[in-house]
Structure formats: C-alpha cells, structure tokens
C-alpha cells in the first residue's frame, strides 16, 4: 500500500546562546510516523508543553523545515514543494486546524470570506453560486449552514461554532490529511466531545485522515485509532490507541495516565495524598 504521509527520522533543532557558547536543543528528535493511502485513520499525538508536538505539526504542514530527516507526502519530499503552484497543490491536500478559533480568523474580517477564498483558490470554483454552494456543503458537514455564518464576524460566534467553521474551511478543498493542533483545548469542556466526534465522523464519512494533537487523554481515548506519546521531542510509546491507553508500558505514559483527573468524585474521599 502506498504511503500518504511518511515522516522519517525527523528532527528539528534550535540553537540558543550567544556567539561564544551556542547550544543546540532538539524540539523534535528522531520522530517517525507513517500513514497509509486509502486507509483513513485518526492518529493522536499526545504530549505536554515542550514535547515537540506543535513543532512536528508545523513540519508536517510544511510551515517549518526539518533540520534532519525527511517528510514525504504522497511520495513527494516536502523540501521540493517550492513555487506557488506546488505549494497550492500541497495545501489543497493537507489542511490545518488551529488551537484558538478566535485567532484563526481575522477579528476585523467576516468569517465567510475565508470559506469563499478557499473555494475559489483551492477548489478552483469560479462562479459565486458555485463557491457559495461549496461553502454551504462544507458547513453542513460540520453541523452549520451558510445562512448562519454569512456575513458574521468572529466575535459574533461562539468558540465552538468558530472552530466548526475552521474545520469546514479546511474541508472545502477535500484534503486527504487534516492536521489539528489542539483543536478543542480552548473550547468549553461540554462542547469538546461533540467537536471531537465530529472529527471522527468526518474521518469515517469522507475518508480524510487526521493527525490530532492534544494533551488531553480523555478526548484522545474516544476518537483515535493510533496514538503516539511524545516527551521532550522523542516518541516514548506508540501503538493502537485503546491498547496503549488501557495499559501503558512506558514509565512516562503511566505517569501521564495516573495524573489525569476524572470528573467523578472519588468514592474513598481522599483524592490527594500529601
């Protein structure tokens, strides 16, 4: 089976210090990942802050080049994606979803603008009618409609609605891969589950693969096929999601799981031991 995405021993180094003493520190260190073509799945990358998960996401989105290793999307090395046409072509197939929906849209502009722009440039539609029809289709896929969103500014919508609009925009070009960087961490907890199951539904219905980056194990459990736990730039454990989360092998994974608080009052009354 051919590969959709091949991340091969990828590292990203940053240097700090001054002229006399430079230190290199690895935000991402030797990470590998493979997604197959024709087998849509949700791969979750779990890590705390400083684990390198966001840097990994940015490398996959071709926003930042790797310092070592290669990333190939459908056989093409990302380093060779140069020039407007090639980049547009790449972006048509790989789209991001960002953490803060209020930052993902320009507060001074209406949100439908981005949907229309994506339809025009990525889906190659030319007439206003076709563009609006496509925007409406994408919005319906996420449980909204063009009528609700038309001519609205970001501050007129709630965080949950805005994030749905962001997902709709990403879907307009019918990408093969979505990279979602902490898509629900800025959304109220009661709305998180519905957005996360929306992602699951999209994967099943439209066949889009999703790389879901988060620090929240609870949402990861219900939605992922595979899971990758990162710490300080390295992958400490990976495998099928339920298996890893039900019975983590690595010491860090166990620590992570035991630190998660469950929204249930503990029956023995003592949650914290001094």
């Amino acid at each position, binding site marked *: 089976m051919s590969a959709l995405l091949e991340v091969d021993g990828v590292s990203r180094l940053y240097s700090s210090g001054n002229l006399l003493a430079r230190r290199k520190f690895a935000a991402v260190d030797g990470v590998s990942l493979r997604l197959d073509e024709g087998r849509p799945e949700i791969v979750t990358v779990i890590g*705390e*802050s400083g684990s390198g998960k966001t840097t990994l996401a940015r490398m996959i989105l071709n926003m930042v080049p790797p310092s070592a290793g290669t990333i190939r999307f459908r056989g093409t090395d990302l380093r060779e994606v140069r020039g407007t046409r090639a980049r547009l072509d790449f972006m048509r197939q790989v789209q991001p979803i960002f953490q803060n929906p209020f930052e993902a849209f320009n507060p001074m502009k209406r949100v439908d603008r981005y949907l229309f722009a994506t339809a025009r440039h990525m889906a190659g539609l030319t007439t206003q009618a076709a563009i609006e029809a496509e925007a409406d289709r994408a919005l319906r896929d996420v449980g909204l409609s063009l009528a609700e969103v038309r001519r609205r500014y970001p501050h007129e*919508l*709630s*965080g*949950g*609605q805005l994030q749905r609009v962001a997902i709709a925009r990403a879907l307009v070009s019918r990408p093969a891969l979505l990279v979602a960087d902490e898509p629900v961490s800025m959304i*109220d*907890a*009661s*709305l*998180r*589950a*519905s*957005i*996360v*199951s929306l992602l699951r539904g999209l994967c099943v219905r439209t066949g889009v693969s999703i790389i879901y980056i988060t*620090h*929240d*194990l*609870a*949402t990861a*459990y*219900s939605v992922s096929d595979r899971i990758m736990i990162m710490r300080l730039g390295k992958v400490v454990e990976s495998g099928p999601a339920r298996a890893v*989360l*039900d019975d983590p092998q690595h010491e860090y994974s166990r*620590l*992570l*799981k035991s*630190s*998660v*608080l*469950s*929204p*249930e*009052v*503990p029956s023995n009354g003592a*949650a*914290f*031991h*001094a």
Partner: protein
Amino acid sequence: MTARGMTAPALEVSGLRAYYRTSAFGIRREVRAVDDVDLRVEAGEIYGLAGESSCGKTTLIKTIANAIQPPLEVLAGSVVFNFKDHRVDMHRVGRDELRDIRWKRLSYIMQGSMNVLNPVRRVRHAFVDFAFRHIGKSKAEFLDIVGAHLHRLHLAPDVLEAYPHQLSGGMRQRVTIALATVCRPEFIIADEPTTALDVVVQKGVLAMIHSVQRELGSSVIFVTHDMAVHANLTDRLGIMYGGRLVEEGRTADVFRRPRHPYTAHLIASLPRLGDTAPKEGLTGAPPNLADPPSGCRFHPRCPLASDLCRREVPPMTEVAPGHRTACFHSDRVAPP
C-alpha cells in the same frame, strides 16, 4: 467538620449585582456579569466555583476580592468576610484596612504566576515585598519563617535565589502558592491556578494547595472551569451560568445527582478516559450578558423549558439538605 450554625461563614455574599457599564460614542452598554448572587463559604472548606466561558465567575471573584475598576460597577449587594477577630465589608472598608487584610487574612493565587513574580528580581524579593510588612518581625526572623514554610511545602530553599524565568511553569506556580500562604491567611481566593499547567504538573500543584489548606485551616474559593478538578478537590461546589448561580451543594451531591438541567448536561458531556460512548454537547451558545434572555437565562437551550421559565427568574431554592438550585423543574432533571 464545622459545626453548622455555630461559626459564622468565612464569606457571605448577598444579593451581589455587578455590571460592566460603558458609555462610548453615545452608546450605553450594560453587561450583566453578576446578577443577584448569594453564596456562603463556611470556615475551613474548599468551595469550588464552576462555569464555562462568559458565565461571570471571573467577575464574581473580582468583586469578592474588591478588585473593581471602571467600567465594572457594583450596583447592589454586599461581600462580607468574617475573619477571626473582625468582620469586613469589602465594599465599605477603607483603603488602609484593605491593605492590612490583603495577604495577611485574604490572599490570592492567580492563574499566571508571572502576574505576581517580578521577572527581573529574584524570588526572595517577592516574599519580602509582599509579606515582610505583614509578619512584622525582623528581616532575619522573616527569612527563617519563609524558609520553614518552603520546607513544609517541599520546596527547596534555593528557589528563593532564583529568577522566575529559571524555574519551570509548575515550579513558579508552587512558589506563588507559597507566597500566598506564608502569612497564614484565613481566606484564599484561587483563580484558575492550574489551568495553564501540564496535567502532570497540575496534579502536584493541586496536591500542594490541598495540603496547605488542610494545614492552615483556611477557607478557599477555587475558581475553575475544569469539573474534574472540582470533583477531586472541592468540598462544596457552585455552578454559574449567564451571570447567575444556578446550583450549589456538596460536590459529591452535585455530581451524583445534579438538580439543574445545565449542571446535568455539563457533567454528562465531559469526556472521560476509558469511555467511548458518544457524548452530546448542548446546542446554542452561552447568553450574551449585554442582552440576556428574559426569565431563566438557560431557557433557550434547556430541554425542560416552559413558559414559566421564559417569564420569571427561578429563585434559588433548597431541594435537598445543603443543596440549592435555581430551576422550576428541578424535580424532572434525570439522574446521570
């Protein structure tokens, strides 16, 4: 356990109403952030304040702490602290007295540790700046007290010599907690102290707050939107929605048998590790506090809403011992 009715509550909030009123360019706007809130925090308990975005809990805390700046205005009600030897009405007290209470009787743990620690001075200076005056001993004795306090909280004493940026986020937050508790305050206001922290670090910081509270016997009001933290830390819990308190009771009771439709839905929709059942979120969005719905502010999204709910504001009524809720149909709320 506190003997009910024998000691006055540590904090009494009555009929509190605080709005943001702006008048810019000829447009008057009134955001009803806190509307007729009554609550009591008993001595020695951890009271949790929960709610999602734009529910008014941040404003409520600001009002309780008397951190009120225009355009925020307190329109009605009172906030009274019953400290060991005197009673303080927060909005009628003078600036000097406020300064005396701050840090010695009433202290704060805030969300950003960098809001408290001066980035260009060593941590030691923060302790001196904040607490030295209140403890009223000589510098040497003061530093001894601080050292002992840090030791009790399992913090290395050399943390005093560090600059804030040399410490990790979790460590900084622990230092902030040490700072807030060194004067042994009777009341602690904690506003989302662990929200920005990693889950591993969060557990440690919460454990620290728990142990400090048990040791000092302080009363705590703990504000966070994270229901899991409430479930594991707080004794009593108040839920805010649309600027109003909609449910309040012992944490275990509220989780086991919520009596307000919003609380029920909130608890049911939380993702849990190990649970793959599909969850439904609430439709709609939180009310716009500049133009809130009439009557019960939850009625546009409530599955049990009736005409009565649209017309009248449900009062907080006691539905079980120590358990209040503001809902006309609380008896029809299904148990989880």
